[in-house]
Each structure stands twice: as C-alpha cells, then as structure tokens.
C-alpha cells in the first residue's frame, strides 16, 4: 500500500516542479532582491543588503508638500481597477439579463459581445488609439469636426477615464459570460412562479435573481480583479503611463523601475507591494465566497 501512495504522487510532481521553479522561486528571489541596493546602470556600486531602504524610499512621507509619487500611483491603480470592476459588475449584470432573452439567433449576439475579451490587449489598444481616438484619422475626430468642435487628444487629457473605459470594454464580456451562466442556472419553475405571483421586474431582478447569482458575481469580481490589476499591455500602447505618471499603475511602475531606471532593488520592492496588495484583496473576496457557500451548503 505504501508503494502505491508514492506512485500517485509522481503524477503531480513534474507539474509542481515546473510551476514552482517558474513562479515560487522567482517570487522568493524578488523578495530577496527587494532588500538589496542593486542598480544595473551602476555596476560600479556593489550589491549590498539595505534592509527596508527600498520600501521606505517609496513609502516614507518627508512632508505633506512632498508626498512620494508611489501614493498617487497606488491611488490610480485602485481607482482604475475599482471603477472598472464596478462598471463591469453593474453593466455586465444588466447586459446578462438582456442577453438571457430567447430571441432568434441569440447565440450570434452573445458571440459578438464576447469578442473583445479574446482580443489581445495590445491590438485592441492600438486599434482604439488609431481608428477611434485619433484626432485626424479616427471616428472621434471625424464626428467632433462634423459637429463643429475642435477634437482634443483624449488620451492625454483624460488618460485614467479612457483606460477605465477600455478596460471595461475588454472585461465586461467576461462578466456577462459568467453571470449569464448563473442566470441560466435559475430553475424555470421559479421564474414561472415569479410571474404567477405578480412579482414586478424590479423585484424579480434585484430581490430574487441577483441574490441567486451572487456567487457567480463574486467569482467574476475576484477573477476580474486578478486579471485587471495585472493589465499592462493596454496601458503601454495607449497612454504609456502618461502624461507624466498620471496613468501609471503598480505593474507599470515595476516595469519602468526595472526596464527604464534599471533599478532591480526598487523595482522588486514595488513588485512585492503589488503582490501583497493583490493577495490581500483576493483573500478578502475569496473568504466572502467561502462564507456564502457555507451558508447555502
């Protein structure tokens, strides 16, 4: 019997080794790097242990007039991710209700609205930037000139709002997909008895259907959060973090610290803080899912 037990483990071991080497080991190294003074642009300086210096560089507030930009970038990350999630949840739910109707060819309509989710973010970013937001070639420029207005470069004037819009466009289909699955799982006799009991649309939607698919909503929000907070390509090709650092997010900041400033130590510190933030919020969301499951178990 003992021999058999060890054999079963062999099925799992190869995957664990590869996944471990590619995810866990580098993450541990990132934590170690974050305590070093290590700048690739300055090979003359020795790599030395500096404790939490890299963290305090970003976190320490010398005076209220001189707040480090880490805080504004953290705030931007929270605003972009949070607004996107709220918009996706609200409009995703409403659209899922709409796409739950039985009309001829509903699958074609569902397929169309799902499309943006599978488009690579760099391609959709470039397409929006050139064929829509561009003041000369794009539809935005065309229509504003048609209306007699002077088109402005929206990406530099409203970078955060535009990013929220593009993120929402890309991720709402995912919410619709998951929520639609939840709505279709609601038994038909329940919907019928709602009709017989004379429940109005508002009550039926928000007091009966929404609570029933709350778990799907939580799953969508949790996974959406994990995916949206690490989004990088869309920012790079549309606003490139600008103007200045106004549309930086934490992952973008890591990229700039490492690949532009060549500062491995400080980049690692931001990376560790990003992971800590992500895992903290995911943990909270996951706990709420688990609690919900236990209640209905």
């Amino acid at each position: 019997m003992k021999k058999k037990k060890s054999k079963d483990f062999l099925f799992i071991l190869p995957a664990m080794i590869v996944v471990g080497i590619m995810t866990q080991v580098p993450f541990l190294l990132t934590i170690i790097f974050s305590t070093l003074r290590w700048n690739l642009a300055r090979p003359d300086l020795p790599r030395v242990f500096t404790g939490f210096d890299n963290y305090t560089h970003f976190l320490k507030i010398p005076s209220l007039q001189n707040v480090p930009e880490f805080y504004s970038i953290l705030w931007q990350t929270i605003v972009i991710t949070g607004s996107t999630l709220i918009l996706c949840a609200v409009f995703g739910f409403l659209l899922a209700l709409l796409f739950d109707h039985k009309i001829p060819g509903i699958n074609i309509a569902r397929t169309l609205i799902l499309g943006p989710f599978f488009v690579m973010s760099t391609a959709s970013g470039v397409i929006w930037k050139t064929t829509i937001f561009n003041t000369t070639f794009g539809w935005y420029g065309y229509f504003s000139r048609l209306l007699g207005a002077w088109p402005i470069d929206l990406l530099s004037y409203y970078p955060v709002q535009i990013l929220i819009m593009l993120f929402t466009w890309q991720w709402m289909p995912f919410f619709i997909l998951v929520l639609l699955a939840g709505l279709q799982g609601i038994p038909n006799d329940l919907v019928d008895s709602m009709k017989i009991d004379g429940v109005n649309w508002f009550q039926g939607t928000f007091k009966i259907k929404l609570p029933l698919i709350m778990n799907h909503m939580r799953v969508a929000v949790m996974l959406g959060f994990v995916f949206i907070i690490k989004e990088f390509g869309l920012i790079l090709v549309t606003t490139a973090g600008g103007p200045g650092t106004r549309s930086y997010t934490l992952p973008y900041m890591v990229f700039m610290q490492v690949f532009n400033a060549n500062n491995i130590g400080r980049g690692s510190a931001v990376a560790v803080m990003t992971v800590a933030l992500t895992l903290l919020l995911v943990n909270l969301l996951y706990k709420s899912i688990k609690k919900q499951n236990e209640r209905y178990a």
Partner: protein
Amino acid sequence: MEGHRTLQQIQRGIRTRRILKLTVMTVIIYTIAIVYFSPILYMFLTGFKTEHQAVLPRLFFTPTFETFQRVVGDPTMFRFIRNSAYQVFFGTLLSLLLGIPAAFGLVFGRLRKDTTNGNIYLWFITTILLPPVAVIIPLYTWFQQFNLINTPYGLLVAYVGFHTPIVVWMVHSFFSDLPVEIFEASEIDGCSRLQQLIFIAVPLVRTGIMSAALLVAVFIWNEFFLGFNLTGNPTATLPVYMARFREQQGMFVAQLSASSTIAVLPAVIFGWMTQKALVKGLTLGAVKG
C-alpha cells in the same frame, strides 16, 4: 373600445403583442451586440482598404485585398506569427502533458494524508493569482545571464509554468465529475494508474481537455507582459509586434488593421469555441474550491 371581444381576438392580441415585444428585444439586443463589437468590426473592414482610403473614417468603400497581400507577404510579420505559433503549440502541449496527470493525481490519487490533495490543489490555484510582476525581475536576470532572450526555450518554460495551473484547475473540475467507481472497478481488473489515466479518464473528459487546451492556447497567443520583457528581436511574439507597430512601421492605418486582424482572428475564433467550458471550469472550480 369595443366591449365584447371574442376569445380568438384576445388570443390574437396577445400573440401580436408577444411578437412585437420579441421584435423590439431582438433589435435592441442586436444593436447593442454590434455596437459593442464595432471597433473590431471596423478593424476587419479597414484591412480591406488601401492606405489612401484608410486616412478618413468611412464605412463604405471599394474593398481591396492589396493591404492584406502586402501584410501576409511581409517576412517580419511572418516571423512574429511563427514565433507565436511555436509558443502556442509547444506551450499548450507541455502544459497539458504536465497538467492533466497532475489533475488526475489530485482527484483520484491516494496521497500521504487526506488533506494533501486539497492543499496541493489550492497551491496550484494561488499560483494563478500571482501577478507576473512578482516573477519578472528574477526571470529577466536569469534570461540575461544564460542568454535565453534570443532563444524561444526560456519563454516557453515560463509559459508552461504559468499555464499548467490553469490546466490543472479546469481539468480538475472535469475529473471531479467522473464517478470513482469506474476507477475502483478497473483497479480490481488489474489496471495500473497510468492505464487508468490514458485509457479511461482522458477519453471520458476529452471535450473538456479540448476546451482547456484552446483556452490555454488563447491565453498564450495573447500574453504580452512576459513576451514583451523576456524576448529579443528574433524571438518576439505577435502582441509585441502589435505594441511596437507604430514605432517600427509608422502611421499606416490600413496595414495596422490588416495585421491586427490576422493577430486577433485565431484567438477570437478559438475563444468562442471555449466559452462554455470556460464558464464551467472557472465558476465551478472557484465556487467549489
């Protein structure tokens, strides 16, 4: 208002109203779907314009294959497609080869303790949650040190490491639906664990495995962060090409649209094929876990 309507008239009235409601619904739903999809639709269309036509946003024009022909014939574009195809093919294959046995072992294997299966499964899930910025810096230094930037193998291993957990997650939910009794019976018949996996478990969930494979293929095809930071010019993938298009090729709207159409189309088609399994794999996996 007529006071006395026959039953037939009332029925006809209800039917007309129902048809009217259905028509209005259909129009609304299709309008929303098409408007939502329109940026991609317009990109498809613009690929059939000449550069000169593409300068102004217009919906009606005489289509031409000129731009597509030039893009397809471009050796640079071909190199990026080939690099992407290489990563997708081997990345998906290796992720499946590692992930399916692992999922099988986690569902049916007898490990040291009863809780071990669940704990290892949870560990795989947490690696999905790990953002790539958490690993990029050490990977970048390794890749520099061992000169992996200019070979496809380094990125391939990174992709396998990041997508095997997704295979484990999805296939785990499909294996969990299978009755344990089949495996107990086959064990009495003298079937080894490996035979059980190859001849019983995999054929039973082959559609699920297909969709997990398609989903991983779509993810790798679209992956940008690792591809952008861990490749050099000879190994860069399509998303990297799209991101660098403006600085390398300049402002050619039609050519850009044709290139992105080629880059986007496979993922969108494969993605549509996976949508059902995606929901099942993601929601059930997460709700149960």
